[in-house]
């Protein structure tokens, strides 16, 4: 069943005009913000396909910026997101690009602050649903429909087992996982979609594992 419940039919509550081009775009921005861990000084946004062609008319540009500001998809400040970004001291730039074999509603969001940079690529495929397809150099896939952990670590034996033990002891079930690495023994990214919210103990425990450099929590479970 593609649609699992009544609220995937009646809902989400959202700011128009398009669930894919507006509500989904807000969620892409929110996900990028969660990966980055707060407000950037600068946001560079690349729009592909239909986002590039009709995105401005649908407010896709405003919606992504609103998400980076931390607004939910039904926040009426979305239409003034550029002004709010300026007030918050965030520089925003847009460009369009072409990339073969990408979903038509795709964007790459690059956030920068204090010499630090994160890049998040994802697509919006209707009804406010999204799929993240890349984080920095890693090709991963997650929906942000579940509490999600992004764990940046060295590629070494038993790493995933140790992470799973910490979560398992807390009674947290892993629904889906994916690992991508730059090279053997190089840096890797493990993405875990969880059935329960991880607490600070679990996140701290994973962060203190040997070889883990960073842990991000993506908390956007509800599509409002």
């Amino acid at each position, binding site marked *: 069943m593609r649609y699992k419940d009544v*609220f995937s*039919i*009646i*809902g989400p509550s*959202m700011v128009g*005009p*398009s669930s894919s081009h507006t509500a989904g775009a807000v969620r892409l921005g929110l996900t990028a913000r969660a990966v980055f861990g707060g407000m950037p000084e600068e946001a560079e946004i690349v729009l592909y396909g239909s986002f590039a062609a009709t995105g401005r008319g649908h407010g896709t540009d*405003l919606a992504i910026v609103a998400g980076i500001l931390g607004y939910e998809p039904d926040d009426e400040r979305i239409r003034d997101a550029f002004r709010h970004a300026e007030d918050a001291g965030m520089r925003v730039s847009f460009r369009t690009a072409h990339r073969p074999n990408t979903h038509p509603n795709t964007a790459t969001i690059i956030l920068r602050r204090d010499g630090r940079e994160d890049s998040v690529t994802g697509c919006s495929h*209707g009804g406010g649903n999204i799929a993240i397809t890349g984080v920095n150099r890693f090709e991963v896939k997650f929906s942000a429909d579940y509490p999600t952990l992004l764990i940046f670590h060295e590629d070494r034996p038993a790493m995933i087992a140790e992470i799973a033990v910490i979560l398992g002891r807390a009674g947290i079930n892993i629904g889906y996982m994916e690992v991508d690495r730059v090279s053997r023994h190089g840096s890797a990214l493990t993405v875990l979609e969880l059935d329960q919210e991880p607490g600070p103990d679990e996140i701290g425990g994973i962060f203190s594992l040997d070889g883990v450099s960073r842990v991000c929590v993506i908390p956007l479970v509800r599509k409002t």
Partner: protein
Amino acid sequence: MRFSTLSELVRLCEREGVPIGKLMLAEQAREADEPEDAVFGRMHDYYQVMKEAVRRGIEEAPVSRSGLTGGDARRVSDYLEAGVPSLGPEAGKAMAYALAVSEVNASMGRIVATPTAGSCGIIPGVFVSCQERFGWTDERMVLGLFCAGAIGYVIANNSFISGAEGGCQAEVGSAVAMAAGALTELRGGTPEQAVHAVGLALKNSLGLICDPVAGLVEIPCIVRNGFGAVSALAAADMALAGVRSVIPSDEVIGVMLEVGSRMPEAYRETAGGGLARTPTGQKIARDIRMEQRNEV
């Protein structure tokens, strides 16, 4: 969910002696592993968003972000007050309210996707106008939304609900069918009658293409929401009068899948055909692109 077709849904309701709305509320609570009042509360919140969108669309007459549309709900509403509409005042109001919510959507206001943003006017148009007319409580309307959701759930999982996948029949067509079935139940029809209303309504929108001018959810989407609300009233009346969908509603949903699957890409929200490719449609698209370039 314990059902995946409309006939299974009717059988379950008959066996348990409950209307579709109540059954769906219980099913949703089970699916989400939440108490019924939490699930009910979320839907109740959605209904308040719908009512507020109706109010704003009529009172504030918002203009779309592109500037192409806006104010039609107010125009129809003023016309209803000034004269005798051919539709009659009640159907006229459903039409005005549906236009209102769609215009709020196009102006980047808050709406509830029912089932999508492009078709967000139809269910509020029918529900809010009928609530005013018959004096129904919000609680009754919320159960009506669960009924509409149950119908939409079956359509979505057996066919489509987005214009990009199945054309406008999938988007506006699904919303009309959901509103028609729910209104039939709200007015005291049986689950079987409600499901006949779904089949009757869907048959009237089979083949409808998705051809938005400049790719925007405005032309013809907004007026199709207005028409859709009126169609839903008509389908509910036919079903309550005892008219049956001779081709069972589940089979009509199958036809929507067949027609949508064969629909050329030009007619599936790409702005590559239909109204979008008319000389005027193309000129509007060019003008909007120019404006955007000038803004940069």
